[in-house]
């Protein structure tokens, strides 16, 4: 595939737009098992990201992702700010200095992001968090690439895996984040963070595949 810096910025802007469109949806998911602000938080964060990337020349993708992460950390607050922020900042490290990235780079980006979220959130799979979308996606992407899929196919599989992961969050009890206070009552509801993660992956797939 090979994606250049300015295109990365475009994709991030597209993510911001999709988050904006799904603001109320994400917020409603959070209202059911959290404090009803996940969409608001994410929208606020990505608005700041857009602003921060406005004048970026696209010459260093690491820089783009770092700015994204820092804008999220500095503007979101709540749980999702440090989590997504750390994800982008960790991802930035693996592509630092690069002008363009391949699907192999993206695989590492996603791995680093997952690693960052796990460390920051002290969480693992099946705790009803972002990880339940992201980890299956990373696994699927890796498998697909190992099995010779091309970028588009591999991304499609990642999105599908994330989708299944999000569905699965309905069946499990939250043990991290605000939803964990609900105990059994969290069952039956989708995790908002997993949902926003799926949204981001979908946007990336759509942008790459079209």
């Amino acid at each position, binding site marked *: 595939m090979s994606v250049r810096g300015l295109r990365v910025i475009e994709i991030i802007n597209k993510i911001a737009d999709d988050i904006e469109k799904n603001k109320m949806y994400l917020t409603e998911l959070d209202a059911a098992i959290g404090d009803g602000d996940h969409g*608001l938080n994410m929208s606020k964060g990505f608005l700041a990201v857009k602003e921060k990337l406005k004048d970026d020349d696209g010459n260093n993708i690491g820089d783009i992702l770092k700015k994204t992460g820092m804008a999220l950390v500095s503007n979101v*607050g709540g749980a*999702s700010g440090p989590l997504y922020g750390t994800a982008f900042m960790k991802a930035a490290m693996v592509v630092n200095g690069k002008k363009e990235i391949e699907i192999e780079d993206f695989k590492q980006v996603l791995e680093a992001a997952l690693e960052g979220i796990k460390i920051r959130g002290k969480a693992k799979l099946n705790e009803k968090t972002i990880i339940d979308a992201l980890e299956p996606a990373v696994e699927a992407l890796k498998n697909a690439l190992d099995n010779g899929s091309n970028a588009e196919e591999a991304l499609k599989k990642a999105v599908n895996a994330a989708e299944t992961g999000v569905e699965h969050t309905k069946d499990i009890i939250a043990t991290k984040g605000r939803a964990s206070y609900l105990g059994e009552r969290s069952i039956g509801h989708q995790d908002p963070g997993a949902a926003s993660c799926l949204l981001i992956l979908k946007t990336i797939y759509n942008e790459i595949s079209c």
Partner: protein
Amino acid sequence: MKKLINNPENVVEEMLDGLTLAYPEYLRKLDGFHVLVRKSSPISGKVALVSGGGSGHEPAHGGYVGKGMLDGAVAGDVFTSPTPDPIYEAVKAVDGGAGVLLIVKNYTGDVMNFEMAKDMAEMEGINIDYVIVNDDVAVENSTFTAGRRGIAGTVFVHKIAGAKAELGANLMEVKETAQKVIENVRSMGMALTSCIVPAAGKPNFTLEENEMEIGMGIHGEPGTHKENIQTANEVAEQLVNKILEDMCLNKGVEVAVMINGLASTPLMELYIVNKRVNEILTEKGIKIYRTFVGEFMTSLEMAGCSVSILKLDDELKDLLDESADTPAFKV
């Protein structure tokens, strides 16, 4: 949504301005940040206390900035943890060389953002540490979960650790005292109505005319379960019993009690709840050393209350009695 506000986006900024304008003898606001610090900050040689969290819990935390309590309070958006930057700014503004203790309520967001700020401050060479308050017994404690939330019991941490710092203790000692309060304080709350985050414009959960929510958080999170509304006495019994299940209080032990209103519940009703709480504890031979009835940690315009019980020893009693002079809490 019927609120005395101008614009949902500006509530935090305007509230901090209004608070600072009301109490300029206590507070000043850091330019460009939602941070209130003591007027005289930094106080050279004194360990500084910084707390904060989402807004919507007033007077927490800005109202507790002053002599004998906090040095700095960081206000996030309504019900949303502040980001690391303003926390870091608060730390820099109040550090008088003796170090800074962060008092963090146990919410994933708060913990992560305060931790990031702590990392930033450490990189600047500031002597900094933190404690995490988790007094809410509604949430089962477990190493597998995010653990208990911090609610109204946090005010006891501010008060007592604040007194310790004011008396000249070092950072480790202040932290130990804060930790002692945390280990000895338990709270439990209930709501009669929900509340509306200004930016959201509608309530997070709803309650029928005959329903109440038990064990809800102070961020509009739904509680552990709904029940039919009960009398004040039954509510008091339910809250206290849940606390006592979790806390070993032998006959003769001394406690401080806080009856905290979530905002819409009038003092009249809080006094009525206190009567029963007082009776229950007294019947069990528990001695009530001091009681605080009022609004200490609210949840926007929610109706309901929480009860906090703090087990005291001689040190905690003395520190509780030390003078505190802040806009919202005076001893």
